[in-house]
């Protein structure tokens, strides 16, 4: 019963609080740009507006809005594995399930891109695939590193262990690698290559509109919170030993800080070309592997 309540809270959090975080990110970007920026609640209005619009779809579309629903569902399900307080809403899920769900969500994006039948969608999908090949290993290796360090595959237990012992050299290295990977996971600059407004007009999403598009955007916004929470809890557990309200406050502060950092990198970089991004991410994979090796030797 208690876990059901937690699940509902988690899903509500991902759906209804995460846009606020997006609002903070946009405000921060505006600050870097010397702009006033949109109101904090603008992401809510955007989603509402899109939900209320006609769903114009490419006549070549075969799957319709299916990938959008599946993608968002996968992201929300992945969110249930992330510890909220001291345990995850779905405590028996482990990191492998998480990885599958996250990969499934990006497969849904690729499906949508191919399904659109537009050349922009195809190019976007091809880029999304190439990005996935190099970004998902980073996530995998980073999580495995923590698992080795904490002798556990479940996020709750991993987080609990980290909360007591503090991060080690290996998890910090892999945490940094994961942080660099987030930029591409969330389609932020300099790695928003599959969407690339400049050359592909939204790429995978070029043909999306209305409610379907809202679901994808919503999914990305929720994913942003999930990754920030994982980073904050598993890789950068400080300050240690907090309980109750203070733990929540610290958690929120860290998540906001991570989101702001992601926004800062997004604001001060141009978009890379796909070949340059691949080279960059090979470097990040190497960095993650270094973390893994440190974990194996016990550092």
């Amino acid at each position, binding site marked *: 019963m208690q876990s059901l309540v937690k699940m509902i809270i988690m899903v509500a959090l991902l759906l209804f609080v995460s846009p606020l975080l997006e609002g903070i990110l946009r405000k921060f970007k505006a600050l870097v740009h010397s702009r006033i920026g949109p109101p904090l609640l603008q992401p809510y209005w955007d989603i509402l507006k899109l939900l209320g619009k006609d769903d114009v779809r490419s006549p070549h579309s075969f799957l319709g809005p299916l990938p959008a629903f599946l993608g968002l569902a996968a992201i929300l399900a992945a969110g249930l594995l992330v510890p909220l307080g001291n345990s995850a809403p779905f405590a028996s899920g482990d990191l492998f399930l998480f990885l599958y769900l996250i990969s499934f969500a990006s497969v849904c994006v690729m499906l949508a891109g191919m399904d659109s039948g537009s050349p922009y969608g195809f*190019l976007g999908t091809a880029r999304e695939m190439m990005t996935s090949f190099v970004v998902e290993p980073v996530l995998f290796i980073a999580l495995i590193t923590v698992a080795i360090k904490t002798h556990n595959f479940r996020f709750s237990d991993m987080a609990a262990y980290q909360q007591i012992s503090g991060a080690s050299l290996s998890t910090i290295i892999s945490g940094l690698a994961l942080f660099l990977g987030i930029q591409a996971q969330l389609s932020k600059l300099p790695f928003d290559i599959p969407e*690339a407004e400049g050359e592909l007009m939204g790429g995978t999403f070029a043909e999306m509109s209305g409610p379907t598009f809202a679901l994808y955007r919503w999914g990305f916004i929720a994913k942003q919170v999930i990754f920030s929470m994982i980073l904050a809890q598993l890789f950068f557990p400080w300050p240690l030993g907090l309980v109750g309200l203070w733990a929540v406050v610290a958690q929120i502060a860290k998540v906001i800080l991570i989101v702001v950092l992601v926004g800062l990198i997004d604001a001060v970089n141009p978009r890379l*070309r796909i070949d340059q991004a691949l080279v960059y991410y090979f470097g990040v994979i190497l960095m993650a592997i270094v973390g893994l090796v440190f974990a194996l030797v016990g550092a």
Partner: protein
Amino acid sequence: MTKQEILSLLKAKLGAGFIAHTEPIPDQLWVEVKPQASVQAVELLHRTTKARYLVSVGSDERELKKRFGVYHLFSFDKEHFFVTIDVSADPHQPVLPSITNVIAGANWSEREIRDLLGVQFEGHPDPRRLVLADDWPNEVYPLRRDFDYSSKPPSNPENAYPFKDNPPNTTVVAMGPYFPVFEEATYFRLYVEGEKVVDVDYRGFYAHRGIEKLGDASLTYNQIPFIAERICGICGFVHNVSFCKLVEHAAGIKVPRRADYIRTIMLELERIHSHALWLGVAGHIIGFDTVLMQTWRMREPIMWLCEKLTGNRKTYGMNLIGGVRRDITKAQVPEVRKKIDAMDKEWQAVLDAVKDDTTLRMRLEKVGILNREQSHEWAAVGPVARAADIDMDSRKDHPYCAYDAVDFKVITADTNDVWGRTVVRILETIESFKIVRQCLDALMELPEGDIITEIRDEIPAGRIAISAVEAPRGEDVHFLLTGGDNRPYRWRVRCPTYPNLPTVQVMVKGEQVADVPIILGSIDPCFSCTERMEVADVNTGKIRVYSQEELFNWTKRKA
């Protein structure tokens, strides 16, 4: 090389093909040749003497000399003069040999003359339509003098544009006719293999406004400066100055020195805000919106300054033939200086930030290569040519206004790429600050109020003039053949994008799809500067055009 040497070279090589020569204005050499000798003449100038091709102008002179005139214009930059090869085409069967196989850059000029005047060019490698709309009827030539400027021929929807065939194993990625990062309508049809651009096709001229026709048929000398300024929404003052210089050249009108300095100041302010605008747009194209927001913030005080000096942010309406309409008073000088100093300081910070930005350099370096030879071949101008290490700037090569009296450097780069063009523009802006300061000093010394020469006599007919003015995007060339009834007989505008845009097709081949927008952006393209909102009802076929006021009202929050 002097004019005499060029003349004797042409005479010796062309033999009987050489008809006559004149020097209508000191900085011009006008050589009439027979059609069959025109290709050789052009080849001599382009290849042997390395003259820079400007444009070819077609002119319907059936009522004057019973011919169609085609003028191939060349510039000897370092020798400060223009050479024109004048070829006559038969009034009934106008056919001339094509020079495009000698000068790639003549491609558009010849197609345009064919489209608008009906002069055919034999042996042209790409004789498709250029300027006219797809549904324009065949064999109706709008620039002929017997075609009324306000007539509307019936649509002929049969003429679909024949795009190139797909090369094997390629797919088409369409960039245009409306594409988010291209501010205006243009169509680059990319044939891609994976991410690589194998070939490219172009269709443009979607918003041709027929301004030259208006100048030849409807407006008068005093009205044209204002319509010329509307050719471009960013470098409009350049066109305005170009046209005024033409008429002043042709009629020998002397402009007061103070007006020269004021024109120079406005031209440089325009360059400053145009380059700031460009840098922002370039940043936006590659997703770097911080650059966009910051440069446009810096640009804004300059726009306000222009409004204060002229009454308008843009499209100043300052120029008349003979001078300018408003003085920049001695009392205004300190404020201009203050704004320029403030922008200069911020611009230095931009330079430092951009110079050391490794990700930015990753995106811009070794992308969109156009080397020195290609640049000469395609007659590229402005920062595109200067980034290919060609020291060319009409402010130095064909001095006008007060550029003969100010000290500045022509910035070049030898990287041939988008990065080079970026650096050239940023450094050029710094030179512009210097020029404005020098002009302000001069304004403090010259007497106030002496800003326009009154013109009492009629502008004589049959005079010829060429003017080259350095726009932010590159050299802007205007050509004028004066006519009776107080208007040009033929007025030709060659904006800097005209020679630069075809080079994009050269630059994008072999590059990645991701680089195409920034390569196009790197020439700082300017197509028509026309924004128009039309709503077409597909059921009734009715078209409604929305006025500026209606659109403004829509953007306002309802109380």
